């Protein structure tokens, strides 16, 4: 108990000292804290302000934000200053006698017109920034982004490269069974990779409900809306890893669909792209391969962790979705199981249609995994070619 009190006291003290430093922090964009290496983490922990980001647009937005902020601060200082002056000087206890005045057209006009002028001055830079942000023409690379419950899908248009990007933080971290990593909730299995100094156009849409694709360092936030394709663009200037999150409530796992963007030199990007194409090539070849039970099981477990665990639970015990332990699907006829995975469940919008989200190897593995994990022990297995046959025959 005393320990908690002590921790609390030291925390409050820290907060207090930070708040005292607030004006300085804001003026310098937090750089005072970042000055020494040891303080970098601390600065991030007590992050107070918008990031300046790594694009010309993000810096412009940051400057606009600070401009409006300071105008507000000065208006506040004047208005609250007069208020506090009155509260101190014009109180009954110091013998203040109330004045009689109660209107003045001239003053009313002044404090209507002066703010209006200030607003016009604010609107000018805001308009010019907005025009820049809306200019999505002449892009070097087009990337289609599709929001799904609850993951992002990226497709490099004209490149034959595309993949899903899932949260890679484990359920154990979320439920506090193991310590949380540095990038807790802001890490994915496959990040979006882009080259620096190229104009990238994002074409953003959604498959089910609304989502919003947001990376603060890029100052890009656009709603992903089924039936619409929104566009946005960026030119990243520095290589690095930039993290963001879904910004529109999209259901249960809304807080668990992060975005990670890796920006790299053009050459590295080309290598990555070639690697991806190679991977796709190998995957196509693997479609006709036969896998051992162990291979299927191990791969299936990974696929399960990335795609199923949110609703069906770490041990298939169920949650938002039904339990998979000894269920009619996982221990029933295998064709039925394939059907549910490939086509979803009629009238159930929560169960995704995995037929167009997972490849045949992943589908075969995850079905095999589920039929044999958690004591289901069905002993049967599927090969990718079985899924292909199923899809052809339906």
């Amino acid at each position, binding site marked *: 108990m005393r320990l908690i009190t002590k921790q609390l006291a030291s925390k409050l003290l820290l907060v207090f000292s930070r708040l005292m430093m607030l004006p300085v922090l804001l003026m310098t964009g937090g750089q005072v804290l970042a000055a020494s290496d040891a303080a970098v983490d601390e600065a991030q922990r007590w992050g107070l302000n918008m990031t300046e980001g790594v694009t010309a647009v993000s810096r412009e*937005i940051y400057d606009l934000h600070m401009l409006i902020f300071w105008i507000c601060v000065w208006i506040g200082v004047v208005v609250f200053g007069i208020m506090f002056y009155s*509260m101190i000087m014009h109180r009954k206890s110091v013998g203040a006698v109330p*004045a009689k005045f109660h209107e003045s057209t001239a003053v009313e006009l002044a404090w209507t017109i002066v703010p209006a002028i200030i607003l016009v001055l604010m609107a000018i830079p805001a308009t010019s920034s*907005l025009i820049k942000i809306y200019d999505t023409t002449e892009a070097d690379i087009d990337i289609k982004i599709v929001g799904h419950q609850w993951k992002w899908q990226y497709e490099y248009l004209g490149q034959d490269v595309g993949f899903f990007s899932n949260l890679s933080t484990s359920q154990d971290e979320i439920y506090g069974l193991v310590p949380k990593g540095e*990038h807790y909730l802001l890490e994915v299995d496959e990040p979006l990779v882009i080259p620096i100094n190229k104009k990238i156009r994002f074409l953003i849409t959604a498959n089910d409900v609304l989502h*919003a694709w947001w990376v603060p360092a890029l100052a890009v936030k656009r709603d992903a809306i089924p039936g619409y394709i929104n566009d946005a663009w960026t030119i990243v200037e520095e290589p690095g890893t930039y993290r963001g999150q879904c910004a529109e*409530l999209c259901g249960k796992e809304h807080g668990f669909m992060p975005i990670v963007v890796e920006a790299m030199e053009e050459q590295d990007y080309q290598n990555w792209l070639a690697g991806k194409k190679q991977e796709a090539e190998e995957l196509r070849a693997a479609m006709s391969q036969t896998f051992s039970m162990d291979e299927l099981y191990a791969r299936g477990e990974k696929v399960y962790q990335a795609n199923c665990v949110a609703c069906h639970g770490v041990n298939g015990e169920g949650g938002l979705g039904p339990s998979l332990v000894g269920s009619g699907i996982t221990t029933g006829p295998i064709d039925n199981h394939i059907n549910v995975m490939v086509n979803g469940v009629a009238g159930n919008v929560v169960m995704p249609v995995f037929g167009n989200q997972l490849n045949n190897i992943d589908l075969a593995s995850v079905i095999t995994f589920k039929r044999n994990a958690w004591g289901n022990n069905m002993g049967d297995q599927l090969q990718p070619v079985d899924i292909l046959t199923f899809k052809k025959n339906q």
Partner: protein
Amino acid sequence: MGDHHGPAKGFGRWLFTTNHKDIGTMYLWFSFAMFLLGGVFALVIRAELFQPGLQLVRPEFFNQMTTMHGLAMVFGAVMPAFLGLANWLIPMMVGAPDMALPRMNNWSFWILPFAFALLASTLFMEGGGPNFGWTFYAPLSTTYAPPSVTYFIFAIHIMGASSIMGSINIIATILNMRAPGMTLMKMPLFVWTWLITAYLLIAVMPVLAGCVTMMLMDIHFGTSFFSAAGGGDPILFQHVFWFFGHPEVYIMILPAFGIASAIIPTFARKPLFGYASMVYATASIAFLSFIVWAHHMFTVGMPIAGELFFMYATMLIAVPTGVKVFNWVSTMFRGSMTFETPMLFAIAFVILFSIGGFSGLMLAIAPADFQYHDTYFVVAHFHYVLVPGAIFSIMAAVYYWLPKWCGNMYDERLGKAHFWLSFIGLNVTFFPMHFVGLAGMPRRIPDYALQFADFNQIASMGAFLFGFSQVFFLFIVIKTIRGGAKATDEVWENPEGLEWTIPSPAPYHTFTTPPPIK
């Protein structure tokens, strides 16, 4: 004048009453009950967000809490509280014996508990309660909603009917029941702001009703108003919702302006500065509220022309709002001030509401909004306008008029303690939200990245302080009703208004003959 007959006895008094004071009292108690309920929901949220990771609730329940907190506070706490104040005060302020439509008055109150019983019962239904946020964006609230959404829709319909009836009553009372000589420009500002608010309600509540009816059709009757797959449009939902939603947020603040305009002159001992400009500013804000709705939708991908129009229109709101703040400050300037509890709440209202106004101006800047939108910065903004704006003004009003209502003075020391606890609690809760929002924390998430941990912890501690202070408020109010120093008829030093010319406590029937108006 005098009591020809007193109130009926027993529960029947409350069930069948047509007396504006009884109905006002019921509205206020109902509102307080919803305030505590919505507060409990908020504390569940803040408890879960006390540290990173999922500790107390599952994400699906967390989403139900954010939704129900918003609905309970907006439709259950703030709106009924203002209607309660309107019921109590408007007839007394304009010298009328009662509301113009007393039986409808009874009806518009009594359907409310049913609406909220319906809404709250969804939490116990299979699939849980509404989990799509108080803004219930389609298709999350239609195709993807839990089955209880139908109950939610009916609850909204009933609340809407109640609000519309309440508004018609208020307009009819103000326009027809004023004492002879009480011209429109002699009305207290609380009456003026409520008159304008009532028109806003009549204008937008049917829009909300249309919105939820389209949802009902989409869910049960195979239409596709909001479903892209059927040729409908999810963005249409947002346009319709915010055409209701933006005036709605002013519905929750205009009566607060009226309350501050009553309290500040009393304790500054100086007439309100710029009465006429206050009326015009209120009307301008009401007009502007109809043409700014899409600033809630800057990131949906509107054409740039729309984006610019809504940005400019939104920035304009700062002008009439500024006029109001300047008028209040000028009222205080060279006054002779004392700082009783209602005045403390009113001053905190002006300062903190202005801070919320500043962040509102920042949010109006569309390019910057791309970074602020749907983050905790927005949460900080609207809690700064709603808690010190609506809630503080309601508390100020309760302390200010309670002696008139029950005939006893509240305990000034306790009142001040309540004020300071609330004031500190509020700022500790909501100020850090500006920081985590700017640093990149999205709203409506049950768990967050590690860098947001410290400020969230502080906010949660503030929230519990604020929450428990309101139990203290309940204690103070009950204590005052049950006893205490007797209030004089005037209660305060030379307050302005007809309500101070009648005895304390106010008799069951007042102004059965119209009072003379100077």
